[in-house]
């Protein structure tokens, strides 16, 4: 891989990173693991709990790391996970 030279964006101080709100519809999950495996930020992991379908739904490791790419929403065959931007009207 060629070496990459990153510079800090000029508006880095002003820019606010949007905060994610990850929704998991636990009992709809069939435990395929696609969202966990293909999240680019490794935000999700398998939980210990057993849902209505007898599988381990994902749980969030660190919501702050989520970049709201929504890949998990798109790759979930069971419509069991989606991500929204947190509405931070009163700060959060």
């Amino acid at each position, binding site marked *: 891989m060629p070496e990459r030279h990153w510079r800090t964006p000029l508006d880095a101080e002003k820019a606010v990173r949007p905060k994610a709100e990850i929704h998991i519809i636990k009992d709809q999950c069939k435990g*395929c*693991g696609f969202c966990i495996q293909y999240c680019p930020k490794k935000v999700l992991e398998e939980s210990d709990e057993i849902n209505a379908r007898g599988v381990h739904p994902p749980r969030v490791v660190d919501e702050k790391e989520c970049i709201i790419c929504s890949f998990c929403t*798109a*790759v979930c065959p*069971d*419509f069991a996970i989606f991500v929204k931007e947190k509405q931070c009207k009163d700060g959060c």
Partner: protein
Amino acid sequence: MTETEAFEHPFAKYLRAAMMPHIWCSGCGNGIILNAFVHALDEMQMDLNKLVVVSGIGCIGRAAGYTNVDSFHTTHGRPIAFATGVKLAKPELEVVVISGDGDLFAIGGNHFIHAARRNIGIKVICANNFNYGMTGGQVGPTTPLEALTTTTPYGNIEHPFNLVHLAAASGATYVARWTTLHVRMLAISIKKLLQREGFSFIEVVSPCPEIFGRRNKMRTGLEMMEWFRKASVIENFSDPAKAEITPERIVVGEFVDVEKPTYEKLLHDKMAQILKESED
């Protein structure tokens, strides 16, 4: 993390709530294809009263029943025949066929090639899971050479169809192939498909871990997706004849994107011309 009810999902309005959760196996790609389809509808703000979804027999055939629009689940192999009738009677409707490789290319193969040849303005999305999953995993027209199925326990000796080559050679005006791992490109491609006039086709290479995968050393959906990740290469507008799917290589991308007059337009123009001549 927020615990949530199913109806709050952003795509819930496109799905029939009473039918959810769907019956597809864990790790099956059919749900990803349905997800990408409704994602495309959502992004296009499609008028759902103008949309008809038709499917045939096979696991993915349930997609017609799951989408919350006018839909019809036809007999085996006949979704294109039914869709042709709808499109000719009501050309203003958007008619989408979502079906599997066995339904569309074995028993329904002639409907497919002739609808493509005539350029009937229907849109076909094919889930290619390499076998007849619903009926227990028999060999089908896309099963790769040497693959194990219930009817080829010593390895398949039939050469499979290369669906994108078949579609292109039959005259389809838009031809693309993606895997269920290419969810972004797939949704973009479905949007394109829905915006086109003529016969358009997308093949989606899709995991069937329960029936196909487990006989072929891929027991889980994840293992099948890893195969797609390692083997697929994006080559837009490459020669579809050279895009055979092998264990080592799955060429994905768009293959054909051309325009030509649709059958329903030529039909209605011809009828108008004959009427006019008979009046003169």
